[in-house]
């Protein structure tokens, strides 16, 4: 029983970073109806830039964090300019394929920066590990959870209570009409990509600071985890992304404990498969009846 609770706690903590990754996918999907496959790769490039400074100049972990965030945002803006610039909803396939191509490009750039297989990433925690009764709370993971909670809270305020949130929603519902309300749709989209990249950068940094290493597979890994968490929770739904991320973390933690390390990823894929068969819209997504059900699910 103690193991079960401990695993659940660990799962929720690590799942909080999956939630941030899922938010990155779900906001872009909610507004553009498209999946940005280059998301994980742009986080990876940002983190590689931070690692490069760390490896060559032994900079402080906070400088690594700042570099990671800034470079992830720049990479996100680059992806938006190249793949998603024009709001042409009928070109969904073209932009998805091009985002896949950009993924390869960003990964290539990162590997050119640091060509070896593995690099150490500085660890980061605000408070040290502590015990609460029989349970252990690792410092890195509590820091991750706090960072994620702060990000989700800030996002909620931004989307629900500012003109940016209103503009984003208007653009997602009808870009043409939004333009005639005086909303600069291209600018709003750019801001949205910068925003989700910032969220992704925080998630990437928190994960890497917990793992204390970075490999060229991080982009692929982040894209997979984020996509699975989004699909579990319900595409285009912000609470769904949070729920999906936490659920994925908990399932993985239990699978790792009870079945072994090699079943960790497999259990996540099986769960996604079961979800797609039983409830294709995700937990908080609507049951799909035709195209409309999905199309009306908004951020």
């Amino acid at each position, binding site marked *: 029983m103690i193991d079960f609770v401990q695993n659940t706690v660990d799962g929720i903590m690590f799942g909080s970073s999956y939630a941030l990754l899922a938010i990155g996918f779900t906001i872009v999907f909610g507004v553009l109806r498209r999946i940005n496959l280059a998301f994980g790769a742009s986080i990876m490039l940002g983190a590689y830039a931070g690692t490069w400074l760390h490896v060559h100049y032994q900079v402080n972990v906070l400088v690594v964090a700042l570099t990671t965030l800034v470079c992830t945002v720049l990479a996100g803006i680059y992806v938006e300019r190249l793949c998603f610039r024009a709001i042409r909803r009928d070109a969904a396939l073209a932009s998805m394929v091009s985002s896949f191509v950009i993924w390869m490009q960003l990964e290539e750039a990162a590997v050119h920066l640091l060509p070896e297989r593995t690099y150490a990433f500085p660890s980061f925690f605000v408070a040290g590990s502590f015990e609460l009764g029989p349970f252990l709370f690792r410092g890195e993971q509590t820091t991750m959870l706090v960072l994620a909670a702060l990000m989700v809270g800030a996002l909620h305020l*931004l989307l629900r*209570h*500012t*003109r*940016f*949130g*209103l*503009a984003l*929603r*208007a653009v997602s*519902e*009808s870009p*043409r*009409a*939004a*333009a*005639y*309300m*005086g*909303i*600069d*749709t291209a*600018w*709003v989209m750019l*801001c949205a990509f910068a925003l989700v990249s910032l969220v992704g950068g925080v998630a990437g940094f928190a994960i890497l600071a917990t793992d204390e290493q970075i490999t060229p597979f991080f982009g692929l890994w982040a894209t997979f985890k984020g996509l699975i968490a989004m699909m579990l929770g319900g595409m285009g739904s912000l609470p769904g992304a949070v729920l999906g991320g936490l659920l994925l973390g908990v399932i993985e933690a239990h699978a790792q404990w009870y079945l072994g390390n090699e079943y960790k990823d497999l259990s996540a894929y099986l769960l996604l498969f079961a979800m797609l068969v039983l409830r294709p819209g995700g937990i908080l997504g609507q049951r799909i009846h035709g195209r409309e059900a999905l199309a*009306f699910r*908004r951020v």
Partner: protein
Amino acid sequence: MLTLQGLEKRFGALAALSGIDLEVPAGEILGIIGPNGSGKTTLLNAVTGVYPPSAGRIAFGGADITGWKGHRIARLGLARTFQNIRLFPTMTVFQNVWAAQHARTPGGLLGLLRSRPRPGGGDTRRVEAALEQVGLLASREVLARHLPLPARRRLEIARALVVDARLVLLDEPAGGMTPAETADMARVIREVVAPGRTCVVIEHKMALITGVCTRLCVLDFGRKIAEGHPDEVLDRAEVREVYLGGVDASDA
């Protein structure tokens, strides 16, 4: 208020508009009629910045807006409605008009981070006033996609009212409506939209055109073939031939 000089729009080999000169003085309700494919909606799209014209100039309120993006033109005080209505479907009636308040705030990053209009504030009263004027105040919490067609068109008009537009372009405001609904729309245009504003109305329904317009312009194959007082224009032989096909105007 609005001046078009030699306006031209080509799509490949097709000249959708050619050599349109048009002057819309302040306070006028100009009707634009013409058969399907004569360039009416293309004209509206070119003026509102959906695409830049191939040639010619567009001036609005003294500013040359040729080639401007739609949101910049909107901020100058130009609003439009759409033939195929473009509301925000999963927002309520109130939120649809509320979102239109966006046009009245400065742009840039700081403008975006400003707080939304607060319930109960001056912005809310403006929204309610606009809804009241088009008779939608009672349905303020209804989702836009659940509204019947005439109410959707009135909601588009309420959005134009709330942004303080000086010029309102209406693209087939009575499209798909019954005669009674058309008469009601004519009343809304005359009594709510027109006072203090300049209007351009594209329409097929003669009942609406003759009921509201102070001047009429007829397009055919992207050219202006007639312009003048509605009764006089509709009496001209070439207009009757091209547009009405010999049918009496009052029947159409």
